[in-house]
């Protein structure tokens, strides 16, 4: 047992559900107790989904506990198949169902006999994998299933596309700025003259998966999601993959050069150097920013970085290599892939921190007192407590990290967005600091004087105590309304009863 208050990566089934609900017309059925379907709430609230999240539950209750699911799971699968005709139904085990040890494989086979769509069981061990690992595995599993299905039916296409083309693998629902990154990557590919063969899982149809072998190469923008799929495709079809995240000016260029190398090796004759040069110097403002005097002011400032592998590694490199900021430590909560992270960042920071204990992160921040933090929502709150500004760069995230405006982290527009994020974090910190030196804004005292400042009324002790329980942001209004009410009715003292009588009469 472990005492835990907060976790960076969710449980395995969340990963599976993220993959399933990213695809078009795929439905997930969780084998879970009532209340485990909060994934639907997260998706509906965080990413403001207009459509119903295609996830339902085959409820595990007392009866299931006593007698097993029996027909229930099969019935739920065939019912959903008839109601919504999904292409694929993914039966998703949860921590509860995995200890029940029911033969879910058998349920899937039985349901498949009746269902028109495909049915599969997500093969994920709840106690060994987290959300990110499970997502990676589920995506691989689905791709493999459809490749093998097509192969059996002789429907696998021969050869490659005529022009250089790519499968972009790994953008998914509830991913950090994934939808914006996706748009930016498509734009980048178009600029490079590369066709997007498939883009999975977000918005893709499972029927398109058999087309995947036609691509010249696979692009894996996120370290956490898609690697297993890319390795599988390389193994099966020899398709090379590129796992350089195009985040930051230098890494974007490195990614594009790798693409050039990979497509030229297959007979294309492209030269992207001119494109990289033009974009770097004139489209992205990041290179110019690093020369500007603004950025000079940031030289040697201390920062710390924490997040998932992809974003924490990319940010560390951008801060250190492109802006001359001193990264005291960089850390990741992807413990299972810690070696990769160490290798990526060790030359760009003093210290590497591998942990998923938010208390240890908080302590490490307090210890080094950086001028800015780049982390998750948790680090943002640590920053609030310590009065250090924080730019959010990775999940776990809140609804404000699903902006409506176009805010990619990848590609050349991404470099602009990241520059703003970094610069705004630091200036705010400077401003705060100056305010402190000069004792804050000089308007602070004046604004709180309301019309009731010179009140002829007195508040009884219990009335005052009750007033103090009202949340601060409406207390002033409640106080004024109550006093107005008391004055109109000639009460001399305001007690709890008067306070509530006033509330009832005017809705204070």
């Amino acid at each position, binding site marked *: *047992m*472990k*005492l*835990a*208050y*907060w*976790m960076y990566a969710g*449980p395995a*089934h969340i990963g599976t559900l993220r993959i399933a609900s990213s695809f078009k*017309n795929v439905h997930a059925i969780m084998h*879970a*107790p*009532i*209340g*485990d*379907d*909060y994934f*639907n*709430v*997260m998706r*509906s609230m965080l990413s*403001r989904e*207009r*459509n*119903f*999240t295609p996830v*339902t*539950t085959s*409820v*595990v*209750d*007392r009866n299931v*506990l006593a007698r097993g699911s029996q027909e229930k799971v099969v019935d*739920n699968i065939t019912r959903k198949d008839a*109601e*919504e005709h999904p292409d694929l139904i993914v039966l998703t085990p*949860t*921590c*509860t169902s995995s*200890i*029940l040890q029911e033969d879910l494989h058998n349920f899937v086979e039985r349901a498949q006999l009746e269902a028109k769509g495909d049915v599969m069981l997500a093969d994920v061990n*709840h*106690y*060994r994998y987290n959300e990110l690992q499970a997502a990676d595995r589920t995506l691989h599993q689905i791709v493999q299933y459809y490749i093998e299905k097509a192969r059996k039916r002789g429907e696998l296409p021969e050869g490659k596309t005529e022009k250089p083309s790519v499968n972009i693998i790994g953008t998914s629902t509830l991913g950090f700025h994934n939808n914006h990154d996706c748009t930016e990557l498509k734009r980048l590919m178009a600029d490079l003259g590369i066709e997007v063969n498939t883009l999975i899982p977000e918005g893709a149809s499972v029927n398109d998966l058999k087309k995947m072998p036609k691509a010249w190469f696979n692009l894996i923008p996120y370290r956490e999601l898609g690697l297993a799929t890319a390795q599988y495709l390389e193994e099966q079809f020899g398709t090379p993959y590129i796992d350089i995240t195009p985040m930051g000016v230098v890494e974007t260029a490195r990614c594009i050069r790798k693409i050039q190398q990979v497509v030229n090796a297959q007979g294309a004759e492209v030269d992207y150097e001119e494109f990289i040069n033009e974009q770097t110097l004139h489209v992205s403002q990041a290179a110019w920013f690093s020369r500007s005097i603004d950025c000079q002011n940031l030289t040697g400032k201390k920062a710390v970085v924490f997040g998932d592998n992809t974003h924490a590694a990319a940010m560390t490199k951008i801060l250190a290599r492109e802006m001359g900021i001193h990264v005291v430590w960089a850390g990741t909560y992807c413990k299972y892939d810690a070696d990769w992270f160490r290798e990526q960042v060790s030359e760009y920071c003093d210290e590497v921190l591998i942990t998923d204990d938010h208390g240890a992160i908080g302590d490490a921040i307090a210890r080094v007192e950086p001028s800015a933090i780049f982390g998750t929502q*948790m680090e943002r*709150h640590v920053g609030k407590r310590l009065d250090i500004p924080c730019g959010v760069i990775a999940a*776990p995230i809140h609804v404000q990290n699903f902006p409506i405006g176009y805010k990619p982290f990848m590609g050349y527009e991404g470099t602009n967005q990241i520059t703003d994020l970094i610069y705004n974090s630091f200036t705010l910190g400077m401003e705060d600091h100056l305010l402190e030196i000069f004792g804050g804004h000089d308007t602070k005292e004046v604004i709180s004087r309301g019309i009731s400042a010179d009140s002829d009324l007195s508040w009884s*002790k*219990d009335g005052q*105590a*009750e007033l103090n*329980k*009202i949340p601060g942001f409406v207390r002033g209004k409640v106080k004024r309304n109550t006093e107005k009410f008391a004055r109109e009715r000639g009460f001399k003292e305001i007690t*709890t*009863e008067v306070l*509530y009588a006033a*509330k*009832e*009469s005017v*809705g204070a």
Partner: protein
Amino acid sequence: MTVAQQPEALNFECETGNYHTFCPISCVAWLYQKIEDSFFLVIGTKTCGYFLQNAMGVMIFAEPRYAMAELEEGDISAQLSDYEELKRLCEQIKRDRNPSVIVWIGTCTTEIIKTDLEGLAPKLESEIGIPIVVARANGLDYAFTQGEDTVLAAMANRCPEKAPVSETDKNERNAIQKLLNFGKKKEEVAQDESEYVDHKPLVLFGSLPDPVVTQLTLELKRQGIKVSGWLPAKRFTELPVIEEGYYVAGVNPFLSRTATTLMRRRKCKLIGAPFPIGPDGTRAWIEKICSVFGITPQGLDEREAQIWAGLEEYVKLIRGKSVFFMGDNLLEVSLARFLVRCGMTVQEIGIPYMDKRYQAAELALLEKTCQEMGSPLPTIVEKPDNYNQIQRIYESKPDLVITGMAHANPLEARGINTKWSVEFTFAQIHGFTNARDVLELVTRPLRRNNNLKDLGWDKLVREEAKI
């Protein structure tokens, strides 16, 4: 809607139970704040932890007095001793927080692997010297607010049995608390004996925010009724005395286990009343309590009329409109009854679980209200099926759907007004004073969408989109 055949009595149905609600462990979110000296330890998996973290939003950052005892593979396969593991964690909690009580919340996993929490607790309790209360608030058996019910039922067994004989005893029980709260004013309503009618002690049960506790206590004081205590109190060390023969009354519709425990184990008499939600409910609640004590209620007519007059600006927005409760928090019957009194038509009352005995008075008031308002009697659907409900919503086109957050945005995108049901759980909705707050919530989507209605942006999904 066809009103050709008016049913004579409420119609009860039961569907598949495939509906969305919160896991009952969510009760720790409001109970740890209510019981100030408690610590809630949820013994479960990452799934439970992730739910709490996401459902509580920012509260997690305020150093909450709750934590997960996260079960690992060794715990599941019984390679580790439950007792030793729990002892280690509880000692750590004692060291770091020193609470007056540790509440263990059992989850689905502890049910399935049959961890004997009730058996382990007394042993560990005597070893570490902190009371350990066990509540099995799991998703196998319960929904959302029923979590509070399981915790309060367990707490009911911890209430002192005998009233302290002398004033010194009374002080003794709270001596340490007093010391800790030095200088803090006691916030309970001052209880001057002379203002009360002589009646058997009354204890109210149900966790409410402190201001609402004050309001309801005052409301009864006006009738000369003294509230001897609340379950729960602000602190575990202040749990009310419950002697055999005391009267108890519930303030929330989801507290049936607590009611049962108080009746059977503590030999209390339950006052079965409608719940004090809405001015009609509050009045009926007070009247019922008065009648049990043989008191003629004073001034309730005027008080209720005055509240209704203050609500008119909201009531006119919903009068004649229809509402559909998908059902997820067990407040549905009380809210529906209030809204019928406001002039709304209730198309369906979905509800996770319907205790017809505990809610009998509330159901009777609903029926009576429908008859008096000439409103058709709604169907009460226990364990609803959300998919079927959505088909019914498409057909009956209600003016407002009260639903969980999983369905709210998709319904709005299809031009259907929604109100998140969860807000009714966290807002102050009890008593005369807060009737306005209920209507503020109910009318908010209607007011908002009124403001936008000329823009022609009702349906924001593409035609080919499914369902």
